[in-house]
């Protein structure tokens, strides 16, 4: 596999996607924490230190872009952020990248592809 082991936070409301993220990242050796929404995500961010954040932009309890903005404001560019969006949501992706996301993955996604992008973000 290669790549270092990282502490990753995934903020995602869909339980299946959460499980897939957890499994995929954990089997690559990373430490994964998951939060089902913005408020849970904020709490975990406040309490812990993460090497990378996976953020779904379509969260039901708030705007993922707002959280992204806050992450960049509080943590600077040190922590890579990978955003997850649905298909056909180019403007959300563009906004996310403008606000400082490092990369994006559209759902449905391919786990190997996700891992590759995570590795690349961590490598930077």
């Amino acid at each position, binding site marked *: 596999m290669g790549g270092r082991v990282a502490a990753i936070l995934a903020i995602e409301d869909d339980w299946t996607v959460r499980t897939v993220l957890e499994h995929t990242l954990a089997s690559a050796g990373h430490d994964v924490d998951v939060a089902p929404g*913005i*408020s849970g995500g904020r709490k975990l961010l406040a309490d812990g230190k993460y090497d990378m954040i996976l953020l779904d932009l379509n969260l*039901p*309890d*708030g*705007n993922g872009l707002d959280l992204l903005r806050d992450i960049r404001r509080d943590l600077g560019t040190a922590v890579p952020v990978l955003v997850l969006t*649905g*298909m*056909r*949501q180019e403007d959300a992706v563009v906004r996310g990248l403008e606000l400082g996301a490092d990369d994006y993955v559209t759902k449905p996604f391919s786990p190997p592809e996700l891992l590759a992008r995570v590795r690349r973000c961590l490598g930077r």
Partner: protein
Amino acid sequence: MSVLATLLTAFEVFAIVYFAVLSLLYSAFAFIGLRTVILESRQTSDTELRDLLEGDVFKPVSILVPAFNEESSIVASVLSFVRLHYPKFEVIVVSDGSTDGTMEQLIEAFALVEEPRVWARAIPTAPVIRVMRSLRHPGLVVVEKENGGKSDALNAAINIARYPLIAPVDSDSLLDAQAILRASRNFVKDDSVIAVGGTVRPLNGATITDGRPTNLRMPRTWIERLQVIEYARAFFLGRAGWTRFGALLIVSGAFGLFRRDAVVRVGGFWTGTVGEDMELVMRLHKEHVKQGLPHRIVFSPDPICWTEVPSDLGTLRRQRNRWHRGLWTNLWRHRDMLLNPRYGRLGLFAVPYFWLFEGLGPVIEVLGFGSLVVSAAFGVLDLNVFWLFLCLAVLHGMVLSQVAAGVEAMLLQRYSSSIDRLILFAASLAEFLGFHQILAVERFLASFQGRRKRGHWGTMRRTGISSVESPTASHVAVPNNR
């Protein structure tokens, strides 16, 4: 003397038969309603909604918010509307000649600037003083106009609205983008649909986070708790039943979606009633039948809107009084629909039902009780029969309330703590041990007050739902007007 006794007995017999027929009808309706909900719940999956949102297949909506003297709550309300996660919509707030700080609050909170605006005045209204747009939220328009009543305010908003679907709401309605999306699907599925009503649930007791109710808890006062059951029954059992028959007479003023052109075609809301939501629906049916236009008005249990309900008896009684007066005004105005085969199931079934059971129900109930008292006074009352009948009526009401409690337990968002379940259970029993009777008396009185107080907002600040089918006669409470 024996004449009196005979008369009394005859009336009592009539009341009992009335009760029996109504109970059976209502139970049958409730059963049909339940089955409708069961079927509807399986029709739109979340995946499909997501696909459609992503594929840009949705209809833009104009949300119409009439307001009068609501300085303490208007900003929060409008904020919740403006923040809806709906892809394309506008919010039109109309201050109907508010004399308090409503406008000032709005101007300050949303950076409103006045602009000379032109729009098609399709429906005549009281003069508009100014139209303001928000610098912060491009989709927000605030209209200040001279006082003309809630209907008038809504009509002014309709004139300015530019999207094909309009959603008149109450200023304290808590909407949800999902609700609008689900409601608007009905227009897509069937070209002839011109209005869609959704479910309304009491917000009291719930915590609100980011504009949605989270952590649903039972409210503190019994008045509010009883309304939780009432509303569940009215919507999931009452309206769901009517819609299956294609004879829906009411779309709630707290949340409804209409085709703008259909509403404009019939002339907008009528300012002569306090039950403007029901009146519009009746008129929509009537005019479309007259013009031979295919149309359907449906209730969809799926979309859910939350609203604040009265927490003290005084406000509640005034509200129900207003609803019942509105009911009578509307029924009277459209009395030509009564038993008129031209209007199909509505004329032959729904309208007569509303006359006989919704409108006259409280009258018969109160008079029935009164005659029993008189009978007792004259010694012609068979006490056994009296107590048994009373038991029966109360038990029957409890049964329906329990069904409503059951329905509520099946909603995804429900009262889940054990204490709340017990309270709900107690509420379903308690409704017929006084609550319903008090409201029945209020509605009885309202039946004779029709002439006064038309077209005003009413003394209640939080108008909330403007017309709910009132609990019907003989201890069978079914709020219908909401």
